């Protein structure tokens, strides 16, 4: 876990190196049955305007009532981000007119958010890691959706999503390059999914990010930032940052100045373009929502949620490393997605001796299973080899019943045909030969037939490997390699 600090990527301009300063505002849809302030369903994909309550439609005299489940999820997320939980927070109105915002304001949290400062440890390539600070997390309402393609003359509005709870998670401007930004969102998404507080589905818009980018000479004063709105793909976030940083450097080096503005990323063209300038920015006239009392809960409530928190990626990774001797890299690969970690845990649970074979199992999950799944474009849920089957294969290797090479054949059979690995080994005669007399005969024959090699091996013991290969070959791979080794060493006198 003692990762080294990897220097951030700098961009070389005509006047020298430039450093990027990046901060992210991630909007994560809270996993809950109903909306933040109404009982309407949060289900995705309903017919337009079928999940809309009187409150969501802002009918006259309607009042918001906080959904306690959303509060619970926000607190759990705050705990997962190692953040300060504020026992008292305030909902404010952010006032602006737009057809998909029926109240004419969004209920959000401005000055007093539910969660304060925290920190996320982010793994980078090559075993490096970086700490990214969390500025705050607050709860707010999502907007509805304007539909401009339904009529040649009119726009339509779908309010199904209107009022669904979002957590806005604001990072500190601690991110220094696109790789870090991508790794940060990946890690954040992983934590949310472990907690079950957001499904992290970026295609459905459950997780979106606004990216603030500025450039400066390394260590110099901060530059003017631009905000790239509404990114819903981790790869696009990386591309947009790269493009935007280069755009800003070019302007500055040409003697221009950066206008503080909101921009949009066009993935087709691979460029960002201006959406609105600072002058056009809204004055949201924030003020505390008089329909809602300040949100207050006790220390005991937070402690209760903390006690029930599931194991998070960092903790799981540490346990895998300490308990089974996994390399930090392998452990990171396994914990990155909750489903992968769960699969590995199921394999562990099914092993006969997990202390002995835990690391071997990790290798098999990562190299054989994930390798194969990736190759065929499948995800873990659709794996033809179950965790229990894989555990059985690892057991067979660990106990010495089959060799690693035979295990690969066995894996292939299970992948293609299914079945109980242990039974397959029996019926198909794949068992490793550990009968010393049988192996001894083969060893003797090969030694007898190759006196020149024997002489060489005696002079240079590393050459004994040639004999091992010959023995394995003539036994059809079933001879126990350890037994072969021992016998050869004894017979050759090395």
């Amino acid at each position: 876990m003692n990762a080294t600090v990897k220097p951030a990527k700098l961009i070389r301009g005509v006047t020298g190196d430039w450093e990027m300063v990046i901060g992210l505002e991630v909007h994560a849809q809270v996993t809950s049955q109903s909306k933040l302030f109404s009982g309407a369903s949060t289900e995705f994909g309903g017919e337009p305007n079928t999940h809309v309550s009187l409150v969501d439609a802002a009918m006259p005299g309607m009042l918001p009532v906080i959904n306690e489940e959303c509060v619970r999820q926000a607190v759990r997320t705050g705990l997962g981000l190692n953040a300060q939980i504020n026992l008292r927070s305030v909902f404010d109105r952010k006032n602006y007119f737009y057809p998909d915002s029926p109240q004419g304001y969004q209920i959000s949290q401005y000055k007093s958010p539910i969660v304060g400062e925290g920190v996320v440890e982010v793994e980078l390539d090559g075993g490096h890691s970086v700490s990214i600070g969390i500025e705050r997390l607050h709860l707010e309402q999502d907007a509805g959706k304007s539909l401009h393609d339904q009529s040649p003359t009119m726009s339509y509005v779908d309010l199904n999503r209107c009022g669904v709870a979002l957590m806005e998670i604001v990072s500190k401007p601690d991110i220094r390059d696109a790789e870090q930004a991508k790794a940060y969102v990946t890690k954040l998404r992983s934590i949310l999914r472990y907690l079950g507080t957001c499904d992290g589905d970026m295609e459905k818009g459950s997780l979106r990010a606004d990216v603030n980018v500025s450039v400066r000479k390394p260590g110099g004063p901060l530059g003017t930032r631009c905000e790239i709105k509404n990114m819903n793909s981790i790869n696009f976030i990386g591309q947009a940052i790269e493009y935007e940083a280069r755009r800003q450097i070019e302007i500055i080096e040409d003697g221009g100045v950066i206008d503080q503005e909101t921009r949009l990323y066009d993935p087709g063209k691979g460029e960002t373009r201006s959406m609105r300038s600072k002058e056009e920015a809204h004055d949201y006239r924030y003020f505390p929502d008089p329909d809602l009392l300040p949100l207050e809960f006790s220390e005991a409530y937070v402690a209760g949620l903390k006690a029930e928190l599931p194991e998070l990626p960092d903790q799981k990774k540490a346990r895998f490393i300490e308990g089974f001797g996994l390399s930090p890299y392998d452990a990171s690969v396994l914990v990155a997605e909750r489903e992968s970690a769960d699969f590995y845990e199921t394999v562990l649970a099914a092993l006969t001796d997990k202390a002995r074979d835990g690391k071997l199992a990790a290798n098999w999950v990562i190299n054989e299973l994930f390798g194969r799944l990736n190759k065929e474009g499948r995800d873990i849920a659709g794996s033809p080899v179950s965790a229990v089957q894989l555990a059985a294969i690892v057991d067979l290797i660990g106990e010495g019943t089959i060799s690693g090479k035979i295990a690969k054949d066995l894996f292939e059979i299970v992948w293609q045909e299914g079945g109980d690995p242990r039974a397959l080994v029996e019926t198909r005669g794949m068992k490793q030969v550990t009968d010393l007399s049988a192996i001894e005969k083969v060893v003797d024959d090969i030694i007898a037939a190759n006196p020149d090699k024997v002489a060489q091996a005696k002079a240079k013991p590393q050459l004994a490997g040639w004999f091992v290969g010959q023995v394995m070959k003539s036994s059809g791979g079933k001879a126990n390699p350890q037994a072969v080794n021992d016998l050869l060493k004894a017979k050759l006198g090395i």
Partner: protein
Amino acid sequence: MTDLISMTIAEARNGLANKSFTSLELTDAHLAAIEAARALNAFVLETPDKARAMARAIDARIAKGEGGPLAGIPLGIKDLFATKDVRTTACSKILGNFVPPYESTVTSQLWRDGAVMLGKLNNDEFAMGSSNETSCFGPVVNPWRREGSNTSLVPGGSSGGSASAVAALLCMGATATDTGGSIRQPAAFTATVGVKPTYGRCSRWGIVAFASSLDQAGPIARTVRDSAILMRSMAGHDPKDTTSVDRAVPDYEAAIGKSVKGMKIGIPKEYRLDGMPAEVEKLWTEGAAWLKAAGAELVEISLPHTKYALPAYYIVAPAEASSNLARYDGVRYGLRVPGGSIGEMYENTRAEGFGDEVRRRVMIGTYVLSAGYYDAYYLRAQKVRTLIKKDFEDCFAKGVNAILTPATPSAAFGVGEKGGADPVEMYLNDIFTVTVNMAGLPGIAVPAGKDVQGLPLGLQLIGRPFDEETLFSLGEVVEQAAGRFTPERWW
């Protein structure tokens, strides 16, 4: 006929229980009175069919002995309350012919207890006004006139329709709302009793919002007892309104006639205004004397931040209103005036849909919340509000049970007389009442006398939070001493 409409709710309740008359008869008598009083413009929507259907249904329940505390009592409903399947407009053009598919919590409790709805009552547009002249349905006329004059007078506002209808015997009681004095000032102008309950006592769910942190529903009735009867049905916790308070609703009527002996009544020196009419001052002294005679102890108190209340109110209330009224955008319901773009549609709709006073307050509210002005206006006003609240808390902590003040600085004025050039002239009407909303306290306005022109004047009693009962006890003492006042019928 006259007998049926001039009864109090308490009297009608007995008559219905004795089967002296039916709710249908009572309802018909009121429907006829309403029809004959259209000159007052108190009702903006009469619902005779619904009224009769409700009356028949409750008659059947009464016959089976299943009445309810308000069984068969015909009431008027301020048009700010959403009434299911019945047009609700807040007396604004912008709501057009809006018919809500839901019923406000307060009115649904009235129907639960057996009351009958006669129709919807006029009010200032979105409850913004002190004379009921800002309604898109035109001004309400006060049934009271100056002696020897036939000048039309305002009934006060914003619950002008409620006050006028109750005073003119068009309904036995009415719902109203009070954001800065909208129940108590019209009650004082029409010799009716108006109760503004503690903030949180009545649910705001289903009431068109003006200023959420100040709005409270309450009754207007002809006697203190009647207002107590209505209060019991209107009050109560509502999980749909987070700001409503989960506290048992007492039997307010039981407070009527309770001794006020030994109660400490505060007389705030800051309410003695320069240029206050002598008769208002005299009435105030008289009211104090009545309470003293009933055994209460009078103490002079100080509410030092009173003078900042009105300016602070006219920052907080418009700020909240500017945001609350943002939903009237022509997109989902009500008036829509098309435009070339969405921005134009908003502008056209809101320019045509809102009247002058509403537009003025939306603009004030938008201004005081703007970046760079928020701290100087809104934040400061909130600080003033805290100080005003503390003024009252300090007095109550010293053992003061209630505070006696005039309800208004003058009697009713003529339609069109005030606020033409300077809106502040109109705002000054609320000088004695806004402090109560700013502090979230209960207040009651009780008729106490007349001015030299024969127009009614009222006194206000302000109570401790959730101690409406003391206000009913004290209010009845004033009522007993002052007597009741009924306008002479001219319409």
